């Protein structure tokens, strides 16, 4: 039991990094997805390149580049900032693709009906297509969020005191090789399960309305 207290200290950091990275990703992913869907090559080609680069480099490499590279030489960043920023950017790449497939899944007749009624492009997106795309994208987005909760542990590599960082430290301090990590495992499951249940509930509730 003595390990529990030590490992629990990491929970706020794990949650903070996950939530901030998701927020950054959700916000930056949207313009990226819209640019990716644009018919203008000047928009969709760069957007695709950005998405591929964000997703194509391992998260830990991104974090090192941002923390040691950018953080030491350009803008000073502490580990927490670098971790949030790095995972946020990577999330933007993944969420952009999730948004894009959501938008693509909305039947083209929905755009046509909006056009025929004289709705503006913005109204069509915000009120007609967007909400439907959101519902389609929700399961994939929540799967990504749950994944990120676990994979945010990569920030321990640059010294953010999250669950894994605390477990490692505790293991070193006490010499216990297994117990701190079992505690970490249990905490991750306890954190992730309610998220999974909530997303399943929301999904089935929204699905009832969209079913046609």
């Amino acid at each position, binding site marked *: 039991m003595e390990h529990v207290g030590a490992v629990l200290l990491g929970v706020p950091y794990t949650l903070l990094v996950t939530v901030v990275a998701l927020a950054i990703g959700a916000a930056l992913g949207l313009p990226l997805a819209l640019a990716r869907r644009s018919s203008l090559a000047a928009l969709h080609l760069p957007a695709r390149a950005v998405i591929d680069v964000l997703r194509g480099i391992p998260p830990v490499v991104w974090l090192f580049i941002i923390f040691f590279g950018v953080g030491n030489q350009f803008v000073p960043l502490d580990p927490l900032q670098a971790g949030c920023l790095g995972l946020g950017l990577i999330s933007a790449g993944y969420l952009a693709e999730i948004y894009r497939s959501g938008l693509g899944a909305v*039947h083209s*007749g*929905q755009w*046509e*009906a909006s*056009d*025929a*009624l*004289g*709705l*503006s*492009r913005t*109204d069509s997106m915000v*009120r*007609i297509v967007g*909400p*439907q795309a959101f*519902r389609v994208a929700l399961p994939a987005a929540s799967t990504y969020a749950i994944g990120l909760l676990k994979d945010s542990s990569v920030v321990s590599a640059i010294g953010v005191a999250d669950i894994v960082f605390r477990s490692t430290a505790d293991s070193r301090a006490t010499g216990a090789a297994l117990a701190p990590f079992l505690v970490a495992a249990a905490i991750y499951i306890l954190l992730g399960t309610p998220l999974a249940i909530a997303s399943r509930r929301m999904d089935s509730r929204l699905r009832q*309305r*969209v*079913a*046609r």
Partner: protein
Amino acid sequence: MEIVREPQTQAGDGAVDLRTGAQPADRLEVSRKGAPVVRLEGLSKRYGDNVVLDGVDLEVSAGEVVAMVGPSGAGKSTLLRCINLLEVPDAGTVTVAGQCVDAGKEVSAKDAMRLRRTAGMVFQSFNLFPHLTVLRNVSLAQERVLGRSRAEADARSMELLERVHLAGKADTYPSRSSGGQQQRIAIARALAMDPQVMLFDEPTSALDPEVGLEVLAVMRELAESGMTMIVVTHEIPFARDVSDRVVVMADGGIIEEGDPHQVINHPQHERSQRFLRAVTER
């Protein structure tokens, strides 16, 4: 393309500004004047090498019900979709309620929206918004496009839902309605914009024949109220009994048009004879 608003010509005069919410009774009076509401001149559209419309001319007067029939691929749907710019024609002009669009010139999104407002569209696949209640489906564009208040829009929506006999469905989602009901809701949604012409793109083709009848009944009532309608359809009895004029299209052009009974019972053109025999003698 460019939209030119012709002052005091065509349907421009006499046409009540329906956007302000003129009631059907007013519309009836306007319709009787019989000014052209839709005029297409030399309309052409091609996809690559495939010529879909080849210089089509068509004029539809206020209050007139025109049925367009013809084999698949004749260009009927494309013609209809050019009228509200869901398709942009390559050549020719489209005039709806005095607003003229000239193919080949740039048309701004705003002008396109203005023209679309005058034409209501009913699709083969209904295209209701599944995430909105039936009432919101009918009210949303009234608020966003016509600037009506929520109360005004909802009142008008309820009126129209009653007219298509579906007021009871107002607070449900479209998925709770049958295909025929959904299509009637779609008709109410289009009518809510107070269009000067209603365009129907095979409105019953996705429905089983029995359910299609309830949609046709609503369309018949609409025709009797004086609405100007262009109906692309394979429903020959509807074309014969309800429309004022039947237009037969084939290979991107109009090959025959005239009095419904005359055209359907005694088609002159060999191609229309072949097509009409195929749909009536099955």
